[in-house]
């Protein structure tokens, strides 16, 4: 009884703000366009889904979004892992200030910061202007893929660093000592101890970056070139420019399904890695000529 009462707000929240909107989007995605306000007539038509899945325009937008998200995630990982490791290994009194420095930009509005980047990257801005001056020829940065990725990495980096830091700072430093004690130089300690133990952090950070990056609308719109037709922009266009609500909704549903697959895919990939490692160990064990033990009965 009490339990139900305590959980009631959660259920109400989920019902009103998650289930209901999802149901509405799903309903609209199955509707047909109509010359009305709002511009659809409820029904059951898979026409929008058929178009989304077959028309190269939408397919390309989805694929491009996935590619941009994957590359952004990898860039965040490459940049964020050393940062997280550095902060986790820093002396105790430095960790909080360093984390604060990482989070500080987020205390300013997102659009404000992106507009600042527009200023910096514009042809006469400090960065592009400075580079042009150094190169002796005009260099374009704003509205290119470089600017798009810069914006993505700049925005999502903390989402990678935070879970990684949480993971890495919890690793027992004694394991590093044990590995060193057994003759492992620093890079072997990293590859064989730190990295495998931090995979859950890598997975968490990657999902936190990848999922919002796929549907990102603002960054490609403000920094990316006209070719960066990501799914977020296409969706926006369908909804506001074409007023094709069923198409926009179908696109949203497809995107949602794709994103739901990501954590499962990630878990599958980690499982594959782990079983691969286990198989390698087993093969090693099996290659021992007179090895007496068997695997029977072991979990």
């Amino acid at each position, binding site marked *: 009884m009490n339990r139900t009462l305590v959980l009631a707000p959660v259920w109400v929240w989920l019902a009103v703000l998650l289930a209901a909107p999802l149901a509405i989007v799903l309903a609209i995605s199955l509707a047909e366009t109509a010359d009305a306000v709002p511009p659809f007539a409820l029904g059951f038509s898979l026409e929008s889904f058929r178009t989304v899945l077959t028309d190269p325009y939408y397919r390309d937008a989805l694929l491009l979004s996935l590619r941009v998200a994957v590359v952004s995630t990898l860039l965040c990982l490459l940049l964020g892992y050393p940062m997280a490791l550095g902060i986790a290994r820093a002396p105790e009194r430095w960790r909080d200030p360093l984390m604060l420095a990482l989070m500080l930009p987020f205390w300013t509005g997102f659009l404000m910061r992106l507009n600042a980047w527009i200023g910096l990257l514009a042809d006469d801005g400090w960065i592009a202007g400075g580079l042009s001056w150094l190169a002796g020829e005009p260099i374009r940065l704003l509205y290119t893929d470089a600017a798009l990725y810069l914006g993505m990495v700049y925005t999502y980096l903390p989402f990678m660093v935070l879970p990684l830091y949480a993971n890495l700072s919890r690793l027992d430093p004694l394991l590093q000592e*044990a590995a*060193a*004690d057994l*003759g492992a130089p620093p890079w072997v300690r990293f590859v064989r101890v730190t990295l495998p133990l931090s995979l859950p952090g890598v997975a968490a950070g990657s999902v936190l970056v990848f999922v919002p990056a796929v549907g990102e609308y603002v960054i490609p719109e403000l920094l990316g070139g006209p070719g960066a037709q990501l799914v977020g922009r296409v969706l926006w266009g369908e909804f506001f420019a074409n007023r094709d609500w069923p198409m926009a909704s179908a696109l949203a549903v497809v995107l949602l399904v794709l994103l739901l697959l990501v954590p499962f895919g990630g878990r599958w990939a980690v499982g594959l890695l782990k079983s691969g490692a286990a198989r390698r*160990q087993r093969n090693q064990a099996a290659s*021992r000529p*007179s090895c007496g033990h068997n695997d029977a009965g*072991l979990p």
Partner: protein
Amino acid sequence: MNGLLSVEQLTVRYGSQAVLADLSLTVRRDELFVLLGASGSGKTTLLRAIAGFAPTSGGRIVLDGRDIGGEPPHRRPVNTVFQSYALFPHMTVAANIGFGLRHMDRAAAAERVREMLALVRLEALADRRPHQLSGGQQQRVALARGLAPRPALLLLDEPLSALDRALREETRDELMRLRRVLGTSFILVTHDQQEALTMADRIGVMRDGALVQVGAPAEVYERPSSRFVAEFLGAANILPGTAREDGTIAVAGGSIAIAPSGDGLANPSSSDLFRGSQAAQFRDFVPLGVAESSPVMTGWKGHRPVLLALRPERLRLGETGGSNRLAGVLAGSVYAGDTLTHTVRLPDGSVLRVAETLHAGLPAARPAVGAAVTVSWSPDACIVLPP
């Protein structure tokens, strides 16, 4: 000297505080050397300095004739068994044991892992992960992992302290068996005097970052060099007294005869190992077991204050213990199954504890509390210590 490891004037500082000060120590080949001390005595720091984890600010660490003091931990031919084991949680037992064998070719490494698994009798658990093992099994994996690369010296940091009592004894026996089989040299750190006495070839007693006495277990127990060692290893009654020219000691309540010769323990030729600060302080006051041939502290005779230390198990209630005796009043008796420990209050208020081993069970006739009793002991039970 058949020294394997020689630590010379080692100093380790944390900040401005010296945790180890000018410490010297020699560990022989194939011996099990136990560092015994209370927490904070610097014994673990010494172990970490040898392994390379505690930066030293002075002195040398020479292993097999090679100064390893400046080398990083992964280049030192010593391995450590950590107190909490520090097994790699993401690796199987076999992979843990094989971690230090990266430089061997695969077949040889696999063979060595198999060998070590057999040695610690964990063949059946080779593919388990550490969290699937009991504490005792984890301990054996840690041991096998440390021994696998054939270190010149294995360092054990309180290896038994995380185990419950029954398992501790079993693991101790296991450790002694491994030692006999392998003939490796060990340094073991412990705060448990029983562990030290039962396992060690030699014990180094540490206090405040310095070694106060080094010697074989019987030597350190029966001929402690200071009051601290006498009380740290086992129980000791301490009576202040005055040494006389005739070789007796005057204590409150009587005159105590000291044996002219010791208890027959071979005199160690290890006086060079003894560099305790106490000894330096009492240069002319050479403790038993350290002087070249004198069984008794030479130089204690003459009118000067000394401490007389008496082990409770060497004392008898009554007249049967020997020629030395003191009269007192029985203040209480505590029954502990195999022993009955009497507390005897002497006329000057000091207290003697007398441990009676109950060979034939609890005797029916026992002196009552408050009765006048005599405590007797033989002259060779006396330990003369600097005050």
